[in-house]
């Protein structure tokens, strides 16, 4: 009768959970001397690595990707190279303060299995290249094309997600994917809907919440509004994102590289992820 365990024990969950930055922020602290990771019996053990893979896939892969190169969460292959196992163990156990990445109550042995798997993966794979591009040009592009809907700090619109910490929350490949094909994945609360009232008026916006009887949206004028479905003729769930797809014709590869380079510098104002 395991219930809710899957969610509760996820080691990493959502975009703003910045394992990267947190690990960096915690770097000066020494790990506890008695860390179980100091003598991890699973390192290099073939069977353990397979068990660790299954645990990783259950608890981490949703955000960090099956290949650990990051999906909505950061690229672990780039992060873990210089990190002692004791610190990694501590982060898995305690979670990340100030983010949605929870700690884990799993037995020590399970965390050690995950570490064995990640270490094996790191040895076998090359990390994503370091961010590149003209950051100044990227910032200009962002100001011209993105701030209408996205905020950084206190500036920008509300129709799209806050990107203040996106550099710590996303791998580079995830940023490219979400700029080129934004309809591939909608963050919760940003699905596109059009409400059709009984008199035929159409109201477009992002879906914030919904139940059988009502729906709550942010309309294109950035107003939070609630509607009774009984007052609507139709709720249209759109497949397209409100964000236009920035294809190569709209944003060439060089500009894309600059924009992504700028985005990767955004680490937020939260002390936990600075």
């Amino acid at each position, binding site marked *: *009768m*395991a219930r809710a365990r*899957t969610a509760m024990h996820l080691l990493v969950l959502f975009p703003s959970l910045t394992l990267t930055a947190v690990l960096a922020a915690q770097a000066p602290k020494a790990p506890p001397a008695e860390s179980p990771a100091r003598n991890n019996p699973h390192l290099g053990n073939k069977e353990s690595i397979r*068990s660790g893979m299954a645990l990783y896939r259950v608890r981490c892969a949703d955000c960090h990707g099956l290949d650990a190169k990051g999906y909505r969460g950061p690229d672990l292959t780039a992060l873990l190279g210089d990190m002692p196992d004791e610190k990694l163990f501590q982060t898995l156990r305690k979670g990340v303060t100030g983010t949605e990445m929870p700690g884990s109550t799993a*037995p020590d042995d399970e965390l050690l299995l995950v570490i064995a798997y990640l270490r094996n993966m790191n040895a076998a794979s090359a990390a994503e290249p370091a961010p590149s591009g003209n950051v100044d040009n990227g910032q200009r592009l962002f100001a011209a094309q993105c701030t209408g809907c996205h905020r950084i700090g206190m500036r920008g619109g509300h129709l799209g997600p806050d990107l203040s910490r996106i550099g710590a929350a996303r791998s580079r490949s995830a940023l490219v994917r979400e700029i080129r094909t934004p309809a591939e994945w909608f963050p919760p609360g940003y699905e596109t809907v059009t409400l059709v009232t009984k008199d035929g008026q159409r109201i477009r916006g992002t879906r914030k919440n919904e*139940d059988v009887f009502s729906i709550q949206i942010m309309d294109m004028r950035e107003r939070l509004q609630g509607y009774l479905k009984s007052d609507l003729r139709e709720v249209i769930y759109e497949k397209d994102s409100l964000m236009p797809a920035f294809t190569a014709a709209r944003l060439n590869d060089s500009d894309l590289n600059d924009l992504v380079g700028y985005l990767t510098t955004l680490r937020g104002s939260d002390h936990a992820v600075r």
Partner: protein
Amino acid sequence: MRTLLLVFAASVTLAAQGAAPQVTPQDLLRGLEDPGKWLTYGGDYSGTRHSPLTQLTPENVGQLAAQWTFQTGTLGSFQTTPLVVDGIIYATGFNNHAWAIDARTGRPIWRYRRNLPDDLHTCCGAVNRGFAALGDRLFMTTIDAHLVSLDMKTGDVLWDVELADFKVGYSATVAPLAVKDKIIVGIAGAEFGIRGFIDAYDAQTGQRAWRFYTVASPDDPIGGRTWPPNGDAWQRGGGSIWVTGTYDPQQNTVFFGTGNPGPDYYSNAREGDNLYTASVVALDADTGRLRWHYQFTPHDVHDWDSTQVPVLGELPINGQPRKVVMFANRNGFFYTLDRATGKVIVAKPFVETTWAKEIGPDGRPVLLPGHLPDEEGTKTCPDLGGGTNFMSPSYDPTSRLFFVTARETCATYFAFDQKFKPGEQYESGGTTRPRDQKNFGALRAIDPVTGTMKWEFRYPSVSSSGVLTTAGGLVFAGDGDGNIMAFDSRSGKNLWHYQLGFAMRSTAGTTYMVDGRQYLLVPSGSMLTAFALPEQRTQR
């Protein structure tokens, strides 16, 4: 003066001794016939959660309005079914708090609080599913694996017995079942490698009367060979009891659904059918002796506890009335079983099921390939939460429809070998939700004679709400978004809803009469809400 006091004291004592107990075994047999009572988890021994009350109807239920709310003031959510005895509600809550509450006003009368140890082992929260009542006593299992008896008038502890050692992973959440002079309970903790059991205790003394292990030992003539012949896998084979069973007085038999085998996902750790896990067991109520069993999911590897209420009823099968057990199982199939033998009469999926083609003539599922969890992950429908779960269904014998909260879900299941350590979680795997998977929930009405769906009402997200039906022709159920709703039981038309602010999780509505008014009582979050028609509409 002294003489006068003695006379007064003696007369009070005599009056107390002469007072009839508030809940007799006969009351329990009468079930919901007394409109002022809700005496056991499922309302009566049949577990139908079907009330004979008729004040609320499809015509007037739209006027239903909140009358009062009770806030626990504690952390954690209700998973309880409150009992109602003579105008007083008895409810258990998170962390083994419990209350007596005025059913007219929601005002608390007494409160019980248990001192729990810090080092509890629970897979799924320190929840509790309710009291049993017998005599002037209440009975509650505790998350540290005890059974306690409380004085119904004061909440004082009368006795407290240990079911098993919580330090190695045992826990208890089930609402006990009072049968004759015994209190029947079950143990939980299969995610920690326990060996499950069902126990009966003397209601007066707390002395154990019998025990039935839900995991067969090697010397068990029926189930002994369904575990690996070498080793001790059976000693940590799981088989939790999460939900209260039902009772057939004529057969003197209790029926309990049993939980998943342990470890949850890793097949190689426990080859064989793994009896009596993921089953329904029919036990002699006096001795605990096994009368029959039916295993819904032999060698379960998807965490599909049969933790549902075995609902008792009588159906026309091939033109003949037949006593049956109805069971909407977590594995996605709905079953109608013969109550005397456990033989399958009907077995049909009530949600999308990809793991089995059908239930064969021998009663075993006809498995489809590719659904054994491994390190790479295999996609199977339903997910670990199942086609339904611990939330109670309801059966309306008038419309002859079985109502269940259904979950349309899929998961990717993973499994791996794991070393067992007492007191540590022992599941050997886990699940994820496939990226393209859109889950949803529904209230479904099933004809238990054929297993076919008669109507459904869909929710945008999955729900864990139980169901209540009434002879007024109503179905009450909650969605996953905090609404309690009323439906016409014959058509499925939604007639009323109210936003509770927290989804009903493993709770269902109950209903009772006080002062001529029919109340609907709904636990959700840390709150009880009582609904009734506006007062003037019920005055005579």
